[in-house]
C-alpha cells in the first residue's frame, strides 16, 4: 500500500506521457489503393480555404485518388514562391500576371484554367468617398485617393494584393503607406475585419466577402468590370526542374480540378446558402472569353 | 602495533587565501577512537572532511589504507567510510529510503538492504519511523536516523560531527551510551568532533586539541578520568 501510494503520481505521469507518444506514431490514413508517394503538397491562396471550397474538394479528391493532400493556405505570392522553390507539388492560385512568367520560365507546367469569380470594392455603408455606382475600379480608387478616405490593403503579396496594385497603376497612383492607406499584411478574412472595424474601403474577392458577410456591415460599392475578374488556375510544379516533387500526385490533382464532376461541385458551391455563385467553373474555356 | 588507516603528512588546506589547516603529521590507527576538540573555527570539521576524502587538501599527502589518495578511486575510498553530519540533511523522502540510500548506491538488492538495515533500526529504536517523511522528524529522531544511515554501511571508519548537539540533556545521555556501546561492540574506528569533554572521555580514547588549523596537543582520555576522579574526591 505504501509503495503504491508513493509511486502513483509517477505512474500516472508515465501513463500520460507514454499514451501521448504512442499515439503520435500511428498517423493512419485510410484511403483506397495507396499510391507510392501519397503526400501531395498543395500551395494555395487563403480565399479557397477561407471560403470553405477546399473543405469540399479535398476530401473528394482524396477519396477518388488515394492521395493525401497537404493544403498550405498562404497568400498567392507565398504560394507561388513555394512553387518557384519546388517546396510544393501543385498550385491553385489567382494571379495570372505572376503565373505567366513562371510558366514561361518552366517553373510550372500543366497550367489549367479552373474557375473564376470577381473582385469587388467594399466599403462602409455611408460611402464617404462616394464611389458607389462608379463603373471602373481605377476611377473608384482615384476618388478614394482624392477624398483622402481610408483604404486597407492586404499588403501581403497575395493574388488580391497583386490585383489591387494593378488597379492603382491603372489609376495612375502609387500608394504609399500612411494613415489613409494601411497594409494589413494578413489574409482576406482578417483584412475585411480590419476594414470593418476601421470603416475603410478594401478590395476583396467575392467569395470571401460572402462567406464573411454575416460579420460585416461593409457593402459592395463597385463591381462587374472585366478588369475585376478573379481567375484561378491550377498548375503542376515542373518535375523536370524539381525532381523531388510528387509529379504523379500533382498531375492527378490538376486532372481532378478540371474534371466535369469537380467543375459541377465548384459551380454549385454554396449557391443555396448565398443565393448566388461563389465561383464560376471555367475548365476548358479560353481565359480571354471570361466575363463576356 | 596496529596499522594506520589514515596518515597525513605535511598537509595544508588553503581556502580563499586563508590557511584553514596545517598538519605536519597525523595518523589514525585501526580500532582507535579519537575526539577532535577546540574552539569554533579551529579546523576540526575541515580536518574531518579531509580524512573522509570529501575535501581535497591544498598540499601534502594523505594516505588512506596504505595508499595515497590519487592511487585509488575516491569513490571506493568513500564507500569504506561513513559520516554523520552535525545537522543531518535528510532527503525529501521516507526515513527508510534515507537509511538505505548508501546501500542502494553500493548496488545492494532490495532484500540485502532490508537484511542489513533492519537490525540497526531496531538497535537504534527507530523502527516505528520508517514510513515517515524524513523531513518531518524531530531533532533527536533525525540524529538517530543519521547514525543508522552511517552504521548500516558497516564502515571501517565513522566520522561523527557533534552528533549530540541537537539533543536535549536527557536524550543526550541516553543516546550517548547507546552510541558508545554500539561503536565498541563493533570496534569501529571513530573520529568525533565535540565541544563536550564528557562526550570525548566517555566515547573515545584520545583527544586531539586544535587551534587555528593546527593540532596543539594530544591527551589520552584515561588520564582525564584519573584527574576527574581526583578532583571529585578533592
Amino acid at each position, binding site marked *: 500500500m505504501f509503495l503504491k501510494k508513493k509511486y*502513483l*503520481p509517477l505512474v*500516472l*505521469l508515465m501513463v*500520460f*506521457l507514454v499514451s*501521448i*507518444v504512442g*499515439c*503520435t506514431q500511428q*498517423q493512419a490514413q485510410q484511403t483506397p489503393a495507396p499510391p507510392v508517394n501519397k*503526400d501531395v*503538397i498543395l500551395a494555395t491562396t487563403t480565399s479557397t*480555404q*477561407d471560403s*470553405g471550397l477546399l*473543405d469540399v474538394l*479535398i476530401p473528394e479528391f482524396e477519396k477518388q485518388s488515394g492521395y*493525401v493532400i*497537404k*493544403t*498550405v*493556405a498562404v497568400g498567392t505570392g507565398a504560394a507561388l514562391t513555394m512553387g518557384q*522553390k*519546388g*517546396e510544393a507539388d501543385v498550385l491553385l492560385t489567382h494571379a495570372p500576371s505572376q503565373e505567366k512568367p513562371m510558366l514561361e520560365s518552366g517553373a510550372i507546367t500543366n497550367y489549367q484554367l479552373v474557375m473564376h469569380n470577381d473582385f469587388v470594392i467594399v466599403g462602409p455603408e455611408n460611402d464617404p468617398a462616394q464611389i458607389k455606382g462608379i463603373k471602373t475600379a481605377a476611377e473608384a480608387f482615384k476618388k478614394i485617393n482624392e477624398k483622402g478616405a481610408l483604404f486597407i490593403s492586404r499588403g501581403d503579396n497575395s493574388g488580391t494584393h497583386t490585383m489591387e496594385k494593378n488597379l492603382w497603376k491603372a489609376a495612375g497612383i502609387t500608394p504609399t503607406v500612411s494613415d489613409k492607406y494601411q497594409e494589413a499584411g*494578413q*489574409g*482576406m*478574412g*482578417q483584412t*475585411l*475585419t480590419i476594414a470593418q472595424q476601421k470603416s475603410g474601403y478594401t478590395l476583396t474577392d467575392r467569395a470571401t466577402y460572402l*462567406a*464573411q458577410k*454575416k*460579420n*460585416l456591415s461593409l457593402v459592395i460599392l463597385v463591381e462587374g468590370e472585366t478588369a475585376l475578374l478573379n481567375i484561378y488556375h491550377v498548375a503542376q510544379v515542373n518535375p523536370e526542374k*524539381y525532381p*523531388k516533387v510528387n509529379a504523379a500526385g500533382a498531375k492527378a490533382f490538376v486532372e481532378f480540378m478540371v474534371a466535369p464532376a469537380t467543375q459541377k461541385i465548384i459551380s454549385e458551391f454554396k449557391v443555396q446558402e448565398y443565393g448566388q455563385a461563389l465561383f464560376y467553373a471555367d475548365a476548358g474555356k479560353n481565359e480571354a472569353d471570361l466575363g463576356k | 602495533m596496529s596499522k594506520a588507516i589514515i596518515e597525513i603528512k605535511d598537509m595544508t588546506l588553503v581556502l580563499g587565501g586563508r590557511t584553514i589547516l596545517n598538519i605536519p603529521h597525523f595518523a589514525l590507527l585501526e580500532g582507535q577512537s579519537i575526539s577532535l576538540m577546540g574552539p569554533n573555527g579551529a579546523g576540526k570539521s575541515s580536518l574531518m572532511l579531509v580524512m*573522509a576524502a*570529501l575535501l581535497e587538501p591544498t598540499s601534502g599527502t594523505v594516505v588512506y589504507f596504505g595508499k595515497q589518495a590519487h592511487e585509488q578511486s575516491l*569513490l571506493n575510498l*568513500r*564507500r569504506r*567510510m*561513513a*559520516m554523520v*553530519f552535525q*545537522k*543531518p*540533511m535528510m*532527503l525529501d*523522502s521516507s526515513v527508510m529510503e534515507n537509511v538505505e*540510500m*548508501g546501500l542502494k*548506491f*553500493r548496488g545492494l538488492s532490495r532484500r540485502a538492504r532490508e537484511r542489513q538495515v533492519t537490525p540497526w533500526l531496531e538497535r537504534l529504536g527507530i523502527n516505528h519511523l520508517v514510513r515517515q517523511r524524513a523531513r518531518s522528524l524531530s531533532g533527536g529522531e533525525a540524529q538517530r536516523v543519521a547514525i543508522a*544511515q552511517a552504521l548500516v*554501511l558497516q564502515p571501517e571508519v565513522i566520522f561523527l560531527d557533534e552528533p549530540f548537539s541537537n539533543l536535549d540533556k536527557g536524550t543526550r545521555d541516553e543516546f550517548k551510551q547507546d552510541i558508545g556501546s554500539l561503536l565498541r561492540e563493533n570496534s569501529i574506528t571513530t573520529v568525533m568532533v565535540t565541544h563536550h569533554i564528557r562526550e570525548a572521555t566517555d566515547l573515545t580514547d584520545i583527544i586531539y586539541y586544535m587551534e587555528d588549523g593546527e593540532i596543539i596537543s594530544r591527551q589520552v582520555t584515561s588520564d582525564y578520568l584519573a584527574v576527574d576522579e581526583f578532583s571529585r574526591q578533592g
Partner: protein
Amino acid sequence: MELIWEGLVKAFYLLMALDPEVLEVTWLTLKVSGTATLVSVLIGVPLGAVLALGRFPGRNFLVSLANFGMGLPPVVVGLWVSIFLWRSGPFGAFNIIYTPLAIIIAQAVIASPIVTSFTLAAIQQINPRIRLQLLALGANRMQMLWSLVKEARLGLLAAVMAGFGGVVSEVGASMMVGGNIKGMTRVLTTATVMEVNKGNFDVAIALSVILLGLAYGVTALLTTLQQWRNQR
C-alpha cells in the same frame, strides 16, 4: 456581448456534441504538445542538471544561452525549423515539413530552454550540504545526479508545466512548419486563427475555450502530482 455569449454557447455545444473535428484537433494538440514537452524534458532535465552541478569552461555561456532561450519567439523558431526542413533544406529528404513531427520538433526547440532553465534553478536551490551528504554516502556521479533530480522534483514539475504551457499556446511555429493541414497538423491555435480568418468568430471562441480548458486541465493534473506528497 452577443458574440461572446454565442461563442460560449457554441463551445458548449461543440463539446457536448463531441464534434469529431473539434475532438480530433484537440487530441492532436494534446499529442503534439505533450510529445514536444516530453522531448524537451528528456533534453532539458539532464542538461539543466549538468549545468547546475558541473564546473567546466563555457558553462556560464551555456547558462545564459538557456536563460535567453526561454524567450525564443515561436515565429523565429518556426522560420528556422522550416528552412531546415524544406525540401531544398538540409533535412528535406526526410519529408518532415507539414507533418506533426515538424511541429513537435519546433515546439521541442521552444520548450527545451524553458525546461533547462527551470531545472537548473530547481537543482541550484537544493541545499549544497545535501550534495556533501550524498557524496559521503558513496554516491557516484550518476547516482548524485539522479538523487538531486528526485530532490528537485517539485521544481521539475513546474518546468514541465512551463514547457507545456509555452508550446500548447504558441501559434507562429505550428502554423509555419505544420501548415495547419486539416486532420494532420491542425492544432487548436492554428485552427483558431483560421476560423477568425474565415469569419467564424463563434467557432474561434469555442476553440479558444477548449484550448484554455486543455491547458488548465493538464496544468491542474501536474499541480496535483506536484502537491501530492505535501498535502499528506
